[in-house]
């Protein structure tokens, strides 16, 4: 009797822990994982510092040009700027990327993809807001279809202001990011998990046709 009750309680808690995935029809829910993201504690001491050093020295950018600023990413790969020497290289899939460079303005349509891609990256993951648009909407500040503040939707580690910022600025931004990582200051992943409901509420406010799970594993 008691065991049954316990089991029932566990089941209830488990259900409460899980995501609602209201955007999906019932027959689609089985296709997606409905776990909530969790906070994962860092390692301790030297181990974490070593790990952070490795993370900082091997920054893999997600090659997803979300806006016009993405044009500034390309020169970084060329012989003139050569980001490779800083251990930075592009990766074609969010699964393998650690840095998400939001290339300028993010329209609502793109925002959906940004959220999805961000959630699919493996932590710890870093977001670099590129250009004024990601800070306050920039020249699109009163647009009906563009967000004004990126960090209402996903945690941002560093912004690079300008419209657009030059590749040099970008490199500077990356180097700053590296320092921050080494210093252990970049924990957007855990803050996203901790404030998941808030982020999700904001996201759902602008994205009307939410046809994906609440957290894209």
């Amino acid at each position: 009797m008691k065991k049954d009750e316990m089991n029932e309680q566990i089941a209830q808690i488990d259900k409460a822990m899980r995501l609602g995935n209201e955007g999906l029809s019932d027959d689609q829910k089985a296709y997606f994982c409905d776990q909530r993201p969790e906070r994962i504690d860092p390692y301790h001491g030297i181990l974490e510092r070593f790990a952070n050093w490795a993370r900082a020295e091997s920054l893999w950018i997600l090659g997803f040009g979300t806006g016009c600023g993405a044009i500034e990413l390309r020169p970084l790969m060329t012989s003139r700027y050569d980001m490779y020497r800083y251990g930075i290289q592009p990766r074609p899939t969010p699964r393998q990327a650690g840095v998400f460079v939001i290339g300028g303005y993010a329209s609502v349509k793109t925002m959906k993809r940004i959220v999805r891609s961000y959630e699919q990256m493996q932590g710890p993951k870093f977001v670099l807001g590129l250009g004024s648009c990601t800070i306050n909407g920039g020249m699109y500040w009163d647009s009906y279809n563009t967000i004004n503040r990126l960090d209402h939707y996903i945690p941002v580690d560093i912004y690079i202001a300008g419209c657009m910022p030059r590749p040099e600025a970008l490199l500077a931004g990356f180097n700053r990011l590296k320092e921050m990582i080494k210093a252990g200051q970049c924990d957007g992943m855990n803050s996203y998990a901790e404030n998941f409901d808030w982020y999700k509420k904001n996201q759902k406010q602008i994205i009307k046709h939410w046809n994906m799970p609440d957290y894209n594993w």
Partner: protein
Amino acid sequence: MVSPLYILGIGLGIAFLLPLFEKLGKKIPRIITLITLMVFTLIAVSWVVMISGAVDKFPVIFNTIGFKAPFAISLQVGLIEALVLVMINTAALLSGLFLSLRKDSHWEGKQIVLFLTLVIGVNGLVLTRDLFNLFVFLEIVSISMYALIASNDEKHAYEAGFKYLIAGSIASAFYLIGVIYLYRFTGTLFIDQIVAMDLAALQATHPGLVFAIALIMLGLLIELKPFPSNGWAIDAYEASDPAVSAMISAVGASGVVFAFYKISSLFPPEMAEIVVASGAVTFVFSQLVGLRQKRVRRMLGYSSVGQIGIIVMIIGLQRILKIDDAQMIMSSAIILLGNHIFSKAGLFWLSDIFDQEQLRRVRRRPLMIVLFGVFLGSLAGLPPFPAFWAKWRMITVLAESDKLFLIIIILLGSLFEAGYLFRWFTTLLRDESDPGDIHEEQIPEDIPVSSSQTGVVSSTRALAALAENAGSVVEELPVLSVEDPTAAEKRNPVVLAVVAISSVIVIAAGVLLGAEFLRASNELLLLIPVAVLTAGILFDLLHLPHRIHLILAMAGISFYSYRILMGLDGIYLVFGILFLTGSLIQMISLYVKKSLHFGLIPMITALILSLGNLLISTTRLGFFFSWEMMTVLSSLLILRGRKASGAGLRYLLFSLGGAYSMLIGLMLYPDFSLLLQGVRDVSTPPVLAVFLISIGAMVKMGSLGLHIWLPGAYAEAENEISSLLSSVVSKAGLFLLFVTSSLYLIPLLPSGNIPVSVLLGWIGAFTALAGAFFALFQEDIKYTLAYSSMGQVGYMLLAFSLMTHLGWVTSLYMAVTHLLFKALLFLAVAGVLYRTKTRMMYQMGGLIKRMPISFITVLLSIIALSGVPPLTGFGGKWLLYTALIEKGWYLQAGVAMFASAIAFLYLFRLIHVIFLGQLKDEHRAMKEAPIGFLIPQVVGMIVIMLFSMYPSLLIGPLQRAVTPFFSESIIWEGYTVFSTLGYWNGNAVMYVTIGVFIFPLAWLLLMQRKHTRMVEQFNIVFAAERPDRPETTHFGYNFFAHYRRALGMYLTPWATRWWTGVVTLTDSLGGTMRRIYTGNGQTYAFQIILYGTVLLLLLRGGF
């Protein structure tokens, strides 16, 4: 001894009194007639009994009206007469029974009288020794037949009857003129007296003598419907009441045949040759024309004409051959005649029953299928029916007298006949959902077919063209989707019993003959499959529970295997284990089936036993008999498949063709003994014989060019059958090669020094490559596996033809391991198909989570099959390449390596598309395969692992088996096997593999210990979108599209096109040929007269 006069007297008396009896009651004449016929039969039987008791006192001549011949008509009773009369009268009795018992029977009055006169006439024909009396009986028979034809009072029957009348009148005119002149030249009508005369001397004084005999011959020959002047007869078969057709074909024709035999003692040799030619032409061309025929009775008519043709041929032959041979071949004629009488009558009756019950499908009527199959099989000369033995004897005699051409004609005609007869069979047998031709891939509408894919689709279409006629045998009849509800009321079991008696006679005669034939070489054991089949079918007819039957069968096979395997050694033992144990294990999966599956277990059991019999048969007859049994049974098993009619038919025809080819080869080389001799024998057989025998083997193995039966047959058969066929039965071809291995070292060309085995090797290599390539582009999993089997057997052929120690070890090793892998694969796939209910791979996907054990089985078997270490398949590859390079067959080795790389591709595709990727909604609730499928899989996996760890367990015995034939080529040191080129230690490889596997696994477990999240199937990076449906996310269709783009042009199905061409050509030849049957009675008359003229001119020696 009963005087034959009683037959004629009683018969005539009853015939005339019948109208009087009719006054007593409608049924009375029937009963009296039946009693009369029974009396006739009994009299004939009593003769046979008496004669066989005292052969030397016979034949006895009975005189009439108190005078001796030649002054009075005399009747002769000898063994042959008595036997023929027994057959004829029994058939007549059965006919009478059939006529009186069938529903809505109108058998009364004049019809009975005519029937009786016909029987009397035929009896007279058989008995009389007087030429003019022969004429009288001939006319009695003819007139009764003319009248009987029209007895169903239908328009077409009158038309046919009139044509028959015209032809018969011309024939009797010929005969009469001939008789009168013969009388003039010899002064007597008594056949024996004429034969006793010195005809050659008489010829000198009377130059017209030959002409007179020729006219007599012609008169009777025309009555026997020689091609091409036989359109009238075929019309009659088609149009009259089937029961009457049965009488004409079985009783009437037999009498005339016997009369022809009687006068054949007058023929001078050159006339006998003409008769042989006429018979041969009739046989082969009627069967050819029959191929195109779609109306059943007309088809049976062609078959009748053909059967009579072959008997006419034999009658001619017995005048030419030496006296011993003549007797031998005449006995085969009698057997053929009896075979024809009962099976043809049976078929006509069955066709009548089909009409009565308006039956278009017999799939759910087991008894009907059995009867039907028995008659067709016996007509087509399949074992164990009488015609098989008769043809065997005939062919042996012909081979001894170097008449190869006639053998070819006989076998060709038999092949045609089997073709159209079994086309009829498959048409009636096939399921409603069966399109009747080779099954095509079903491509769902949401996946468009782009132009780049049509190449392959059209190739399957070309395959379908082969069986295009199969669908249309009954085209003019409405096809009922379900059995007619009124049909049940129309069922008449009594009639079926009459037909069954006929079939029992055929079977019994076949078995007795078989016992007679096989007793000589002490091989009676070979008949066991027949006994088992009969008993099993009876069990099934009695609805014995499936599982009890299965257990009985498996126990029986086990016992048999035990007995056989004890007596075998060496390579025979290897094949014994392969054939018997291999199939026995696979039979376990039949346990999953719950209800009765008619004929399944009996046929499988008999098939396995036949395979075992191949090993113990010592004579050519025994071997060929078992081989044919195996062929027939496996094609019947294939036909059980729901959509297998086209494929089964094609399999049957190819196998028969292969068997006949092998037969000719064996006949060409009479000194050859079917005992495994290795390659030491240096006697030089004819190259043609070697080719023909190897073709026989390669058909069975599905070698390139002869493979087109293979995919359909393996794919459309039921899953268990596919497994058995591809893993066990295909090795029978390999066995034949081993048994005949001493042949293949002879030079390919008379002057060259390249042995035939080189050619075989290349064929094997390209078979492996082609099989792999074909498998690469299949969407249907069973087609993939089928082509895969083809390729694997190609490797075995390649290895065999090396003719070295290592080569043979390789071949046997691959045979054994392929049995393991392919059985596992088929079983696992069978489980998947059992659950998913689709054969298209791209419709599956993601099943690993639902069927993990099946996945592991498939994984292990594809690793093994593709030869990836550490599993045992690598052993096969290692042996193969080592053997090839040692022998110096470098290019073949290259082809084999390419083939094995391609094999890796399709195998990966197989496992990926089924088990990985996206799970479909409809499979979400699926379970693992039933336990019956899993048990053999687990056993097989354990065996694979064992062989992988300890290769010597397998290679060792094989090595010892091959050693008697070659000197050793590999040596063992511990677990390492050394060849002259390299070495392999399966044990160490296994340990190293396990080691290198454990290490990263441990690392991964350590690194990923906490925070690895198991996600669902749509949690993938989908270019920042979410997948829509599993179907559109699963990559499985046209998996190797780029390969097709790169090499598609080399995949043109040449073999299929060639065989389609052959079939089309034959078909259209038959179609053109039959245009001579214009339907105009006058044309027929003209043809007869022209035929006579040509024959007479030929006899004169020219124009």
